[in-house]
């Protein structure tokens, strides 16, 4: 399995290389000058030109590209061309916030999505099924940031239970959890909708399988048939799509982080785009790609745990 993991990571390197090349080119194709963004419209042309030189933007593109690749290979993500702050330090500072948000949302999604999806499949076209379908549809349609605002209005403005600004102090569990609850819930509810829908259709398919009928004919209780025979097999597509949705979730977290003013990769990326902070933007994008690769790998590894027929070669 270790060899498999290493091989998968190595296989993903060309993908990462293509992504970072694309990112490097795209951010430079965008009109807009980081020096003007940094100095504002009041700055004279000489000041802008001097800053561009200092930022290393007057060098030919290929020189900038190889400089960027070289730094990356040495594990040096460089410094923000706007603030001069080390990009690596910025990433490390905000990463825990994005990770806790994403994993809590995934956790909430599976925690509620699977128990909600199973009865909907078992009692197809019943009231509970209709409720679940409406809930899933709403969850799939509503943008995470909008749901976030609604949650803030209820839990923060009306009930005064949770703060709306910042990510809290990571060293204080209570502060951290209070700041995490609403953003995780807003993303988690959307994830729940995805998982509920997937669980319903997957369990429905499995319940029609011959081995389920056989199990029932043997006189095994419906509960055992459902949990032992049907659910375990139904989990494979749920986990597969769960992995895909987790990737979508990483993207959705961008807006959620902004709405809740949380530190995170999302707010780092949006700020970098606005300021044309090439170095920060490149590094964040590469990091995002890396997270996607890791999430896909984790999904593949979880397959094996659920389905013993799957072997890693």
């Amino acid at each position: 399995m270790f060899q498999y993991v290493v091989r998968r990571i190595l296989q993903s390197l060309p993908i990462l290389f293509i992504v970072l090349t694309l990112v490097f080119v795209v951010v430079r194709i965008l009109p807009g000058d980081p020096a003007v963004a940094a100095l504002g419209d009041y700055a004279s042309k000489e000041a802008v030109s001097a800053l561009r030189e200092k930022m290393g933007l007057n060098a030919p593109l290929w020189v900038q590209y190889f400089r960027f690749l070289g730094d990356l290979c040495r594990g040096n993500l460089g410094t923000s061309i706007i603030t001069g702050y080390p990009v690596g330090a910025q990433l490390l500072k905000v990463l825990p916030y994005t990770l806790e948000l994403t994993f809590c949302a995934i956790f909430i999604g599976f925690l509620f999505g699977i128990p909600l999806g199973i009865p909907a499949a078992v009692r197809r076209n019943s009231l509970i099924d209709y409720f679940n379908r409406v809930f899933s549809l709403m969850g799939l349609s509503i943008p995470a940031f909008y749901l976030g605002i609604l949650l803030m209005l209820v839990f923060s403005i009306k009930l005064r239970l949770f703060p709306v600004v910042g990510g809290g102090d990571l060293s204080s569990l209570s502060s951290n959890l209070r700041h995490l609850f609403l953003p995780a819930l807003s993303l988690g509810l959307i994830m729940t909708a995805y998982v509920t829908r997937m669980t319903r259709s997957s369990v429905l398919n499995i319940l029609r399988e011959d081995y389920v009928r056989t199990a029932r004919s043997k006189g095994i209780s419906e509960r055992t048939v459902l949990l032992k025979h049907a659910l375990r097999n139904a989990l494979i597509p749920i986990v597969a799509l769960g992995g895909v949705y987790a990737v979508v979730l990483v993207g959705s977290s961008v807006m959620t982080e902004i709405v809740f003013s949380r530190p995170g990769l999302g707010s780092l990326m949006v700020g970098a785009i606005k300021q044309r902070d090439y170095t920060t933007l490149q590094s964040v994008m590469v990091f995002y790609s890396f997270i996607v690769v890791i999430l896909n790998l984790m999904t593949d590894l979880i397959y094996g745990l659920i389905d013993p027929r799957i072997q890693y070669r």
Partner: protein
Amino acid sequence: MRKKRFLYLMLASLFVGVLVFDVGTAQQLAKEQALTIAFDAGDVATLDPHRSATTVDRATVDMIFNGLVRYPPGDQVKVEPDLATSWRVSPDGRVWTFTLRRGVFFHPYPGNPTGYELTSEDVLYSLKRAADSKRSSYAGEYSGISFEAVDPYTVRITIDKPISDTLFLAKFASYAGGMVVCRKAIEEKGDEWFKTNPVGTGPFRFESYEPRQKTVLAANPRYFRKAPILKQVVVRYMPAVSSRELGLQTGELQIIEGLKEDKWVEKIASLPDVTVKSFGPCESQVFHFNMTQPPFSDIRVRKAVSYAISREGIAAFMGKGLAVPIYSPTQAPPAPGALTKEEAMKAGVVYEDNIAEAKRLLTEAGYPNGFKTEVIISEMASSYQKPMVAIQAQLKKAGIDMALKVVDHSSFHSLIRKDASPIVYYAAWRPNVDAFLTRFYHSDSTVVSGKKPDTNFSHYGAVDANGDGKIDSIDELIEKARWELDAKKQMALWKEAQIKLLSDVAVVPIIRLKYAFPQKSSVDLGHPLEFSWATYSPQITEETRILAK
């Protein structure tokens, strides 16, 4: 005797009454003197005052640094001592001598935990730095000026050619290049470090910075005016307006950057414990024609466009609580030297709100059915998109089909400096009329082709604007006004230059838009909020405090 007793009794009652009244009305301070202000910004760009330009950066450095002189908080014109206690000028107006305040200390910084006393060496270093284009965005302001330290508490500044007090002192006020930075900190740590670790002498000292999140400032107990009442100021970067609004409602934020929209301001002002006061300086929103590109090279077409525009209509569309029509192509009144509506009317250079005349001029110019044009504008809603949508609708009535190509703000600045748009709608504030005229209308500042390309989008001074076969320019007027020492004559020259610009219809001034920073009612800024040198946000000073509910 009775009379005396009565008098004593009356005086005693008065004294007790005053005492009781005073105790009753004295405002109690809140226990926690910490203020959080949130801005519509993704992050800091730089906290180096010689580089800072964005709203949030200027607001932050305003709390950290001082200049030789300053404009008292809330005042646009009056100058008073800051780091200098007094100054005198030589009879020929060239040599200015500033006496520094004693006992002013720089904030502590890593490697210097107690800070150190400010002397003329620091002021000298700071001014030379502000004049260096490689280290300052405001270097142009200091050309032709030399600096010397006479003794530890005296600085002498010599200018090649004397200028008026208004223009001279503005260069050394606690704004932009005039802010005095900590010499030793920069020499020890470097310019790059200083960008996110500013060290000054102001009421608040830098404490920490979290990228894309916040900058924390702490009270400077040794501030030379007095120890600030607030113990901490947190500057938060929050680009989503809904989040700022909710944060204000929950009380996590005390002041927020608002939208420049009447309806939004009305809505937020109706919330309990929230007050909103609009204030300046206002950015002048001006419509610049690129006079090198047809059809705008023809003055009749430009005049037709101007006639098709209704400033009042645009102000009404934007909301009259914040938008005010302007007739000056530079700063808006009451700034000294700005052209008022009455003066523009008297000079006969107000061409507006007359569709019939616009159509007649278009027909005369050979466009009886109007014409099509595409204009690049910034994504920013209140300063660019919204007013331009209103203008687009007004021009349509005259048969002019103006398509708007919306790009992000950074791209906008880049493209308009490459002459990529036939019309540039630009919102700006500059500290005085001279800076406005020089940077927007002097031939040297013409985009792409000028000697020092800057923001002369109309190419005024490089083209024949009125069709008489001669190049039209206000270069001479700008320079004459700059060296004029008599304030009245200087203003007259500035106004003459503005009238010339308007009569040639190089530009159409549209509106100015006030700022709105909703705040908790418990926040007392400590000064009247009419104008802020911060520049686009309320100033937070040593007198700012939070009152108990």
